[in-house]
């Protein structure tokens, strides 16, 4: 059994009465894994991170790290005593410190404070600011050890040579790595990343994403990453937690989220999807695209009117005329295949990925067949 590093139990948080930003949320994170919290903007992802690192107090529920409760209503271990690192969305690098000073910040005196006579007070070792140091154990490093640790971090994140630069003198991707190195510096038990790639342009994003994944793996750090980008989540995560309006809709490995979405929201939010109305009779479902057997009859128990998930690749072009005749409404070329928006006779619109050689134009009619690997349907939403 994998051992659990972080456990969130029935967590609730609201800022205004009656509006739950986090609503009865539970999640466990096992050691060494990368969990991606995926959800549309405004679903409470950032609030969840802030609850985990102790910048917010929960209204209900608790956060448990390594078997120890670190947050519950009325009791919050201060952020500096949690050994949880964080990479902020805009990196939050200290503009007045060099790259090395930024990364080594948690270890104590910087260039400026080193000159001051009360330096001992400012370093993490000194009274009266020693609360954090007492918990951290290794914060009060000797100068040699500190240098070694910094060199290790620069090596790990590929920042060697940039130590003396200031944050505004390095590129966005480098800033990202400094933020990561800083978060990893004091060997946190857990690293939180809040939309870490959203400030990078599309090309850079993919490269940095892979680099971050490698760094996290090599340092064997457990991490929670928050994003609204499903491609990012699919690529980087061991497990994805899909979040909507303060609740978790589904938690599982990427392929499970993609192929067995547990709710209509997950099905609609992850992957390209359209829905067509269907009617369950016995062990199969009737739709405009034909009658299809249900693999798992149980899921349809008690349902009659349903919505059936249609992924673009579930549709096949059918040239013998046995399929359903549809009209092309819109065309988007995507290289080897083309994404068509098709209008069914009833007026329902679906998206279909058909071979690129078909060269259909809006207005043309085309016959398609529905060939899903498995029928996925949800009770129809009441109008």
């Amino acid at each position, binding site marked *: 059994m994998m051992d659990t590093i972080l456990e969130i139990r029935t967590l609730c948080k609201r800022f205004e009465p009656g509006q739950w930003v986090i609503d009865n949320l539970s999640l466990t994170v096992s050691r060494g894994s990368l969990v991606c919290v995926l959800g549309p903007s405004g679903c409470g992802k950032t609030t969840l991170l*802030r609850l985990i*690192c*102790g*910048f*917010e*107090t929960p209204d209900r529920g608790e956060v448990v790290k390594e078997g120890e409760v670190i947050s519950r209503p*009325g*009791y*919050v271990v*201060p*952020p*500096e*005593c949690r*050994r*949880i*690192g*964080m990479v*902020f969305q*805009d990196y*939050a*690098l*200290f*503009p*007045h410190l060099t790259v090395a000073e930024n990364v080594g*910040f*948690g270890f104590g005196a*910087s260039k*400026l*404070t080193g000159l001051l006579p009360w330096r001992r007070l*400012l370093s*993490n070792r000194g009274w009266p*600011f020693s*609360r*954090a140091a007492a918990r*951290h154990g290794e*914060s009060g490093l000797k100068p040699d050890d500190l240098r070694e640790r910094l060199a290790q971090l620069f090596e790990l994140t590929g920042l060697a040579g940039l130590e003396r630069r200031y944050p505004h003198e390095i590129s966005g991707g480098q800033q990202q790595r400094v933020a990561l190195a*800083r*978060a990893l*510096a*004091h060997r946190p038990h857990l690293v939180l990343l809040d939309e870490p790639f959203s400030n990078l342009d599309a090309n850079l994003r993919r490269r940095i994403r892979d680099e971050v994944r490698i760094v996290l793996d090599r340092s064997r750090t457990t991490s929670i990453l928050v994003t609204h980008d499903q491609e990012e989540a699919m690529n980087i995560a061991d497990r994805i937690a899909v979040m909507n309006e303060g609740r978790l809709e589904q938690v599982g490995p990427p392929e499970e989220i993609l192929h067995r979405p547990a709710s209509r929201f997950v099905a609609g939010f992850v992957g390209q999807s359209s829905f067509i109305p269907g009617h369950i009779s016995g062990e199969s479902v009737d739709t405009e695209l034909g009658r299809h057997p249900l693999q798992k009859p149980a899921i349809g128990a008690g349902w009659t009117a349903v919505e059936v998930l249609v992924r673009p690749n579930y549709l096949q072009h059918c040239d013998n005329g046995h399929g359903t005749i549809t009209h092309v409404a819109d065309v988007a070329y995507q290289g080897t295949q083309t994404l068509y928006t098709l209008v069914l006779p009833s007026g329902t619109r679906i998206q279909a990925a058909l071979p690129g050689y078909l060269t259909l134009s809006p207005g043309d009619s085309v016959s398609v067949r529905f060939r899903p690997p498995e029928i996925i349907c949800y009770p129809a939403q009441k109008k």
Partner: protein
Amino acid sequence: MRLRLPSSHRPLGMAVAGAAVSLTMMLPLVYVAGYGLGAGGKVWGRLWGNWIPQLMVNTLGLALVTAGVTFLLGVSLAVLITRFDFFGKRVWSWLLATPLGIPPYIMAYAYTEMFLPGGWAPQAASWLAGHEADVPMIYGRFPAVVWVLSLATYPYVYLLVRASLLNYNAAFDEAARIQGAGLWRRFLGITLPLQRPAIMAGLFLVVLYVFSDFGAVSMMRFPTFTRAIYLELVGRSDRASASALALVLIALSWLLFMQERRARSRSRFYQTGGTYRKLRPRRCGAAGTVAIWSYLTLVFTASFGLVVAFLVHRSVDGIRLEGWPADLWGYAFNSLFAAGSAATVSLFLIVPVAYLATRYREWWYQAYLWASYAGYVLPGPIIGMGVLFIAIHLFAPIYGTVAVVVLAYLIRFLPQGLQAQESAFHQIKPNLEEAARTCGVSFHTALLRVVLPLAKTGIFTGWVLVFVSSMKELPATLLLRPLGFDTLAVRIWMETSEEFYSLAAPAALVLIAVTVPLFAALFSRNLRESAG
């Protein structure tokens, strides 16, 4: 931007310090209000009967006309400096701000003396007329008071409008141009209305200054509220009447302050646009340069050059007749000591108030901030009076010591430092502190190592503002100074009111020599930042 921390992490020590500071700042107001409201119908009746209407007309009239003049001066100068490119522009842009370093009472002193019989004005008039000509004295004359106060305060409008024009988005102007608007229509219909927040902020400072000015109006013997309060308190020892008059003036200033805050909150995001480009100033030919130079020289001479020339002339005369005034350095030291203590202490008092108010949204932290701004609407004589009451009733041991003077400076000028720090803290994103804490550093360490270093420009600005204002302070010092502790400002006042002028001019010169360079340093830093 606000930092949202769980209640268990609120910095308790800081909250206590903030509460103590804001309470102290409120004390004079409370005392003065207490005395004023308790004055009774007889006192109020007497004041309403013969004092208040006249004072109201004088004070409001003076404020209004001065605001009008400073509007014309400040806006025209700001437009010339930002919209035109001419030789010597950079130097002019800070030369025009230098009058802020001269206390208005020194300007008033210089001008009244110039118009005395045998002064520069009669001499110039005689020379122009070709025969012995007479020039009226300017004591108690409304236009003269407006003249002096406008020249002393126009830099407020100039500096704010200048900064705002430098940030002006050229796209507005170009859009109007495409619609076919001519130069004047663009200026009056687009550019000027968009500078309204800056203009209003500048005029607010001017009017508030006129309300609170004591030295200049007193030297020119023009009765306004501050002068009446001082006379009631010192001349008749009538605390109740003085407090009642003070209450009326506070009400006026407070109304103004509220208006300004409201206007500011409504117009905060006036000029934000997606694409932003600076307006390119128009190059001037020789004729244009000469015209602009003449106008700027005129304003500069009237506000700074003439005054300083006069002071130098007087000092040289005085020293030639009576030798070097030996006690001058003592007074200078007193000024520096009191002002330096106030400025330095203010830094420590401001940090908790400014930090809490910018980082937490709770109403009580906002209340600390508001309470600490009390000094803003309390003119000097009122602060002097309030601190006098406090010292007698609450802090008896410090009564009659320099500490009382420093306390008055603190209460009166803390808002200036507070404003500087408040805006500095606002510019630091709270997630920097959060980042520090996730690095395993405590609240205080994050404050010392991240927030304060980043806010150091704002903190320095605050120090200079409090220091310079304290150096120039006159009425509260007059009321509170211990025996034998004369500052430069007090000395200037005494010498001129006893019509025994020999030390006034050198003292004024020394005072200016301290304040103007400090202001210049501050402005050139600000000017560089806003230009770059």
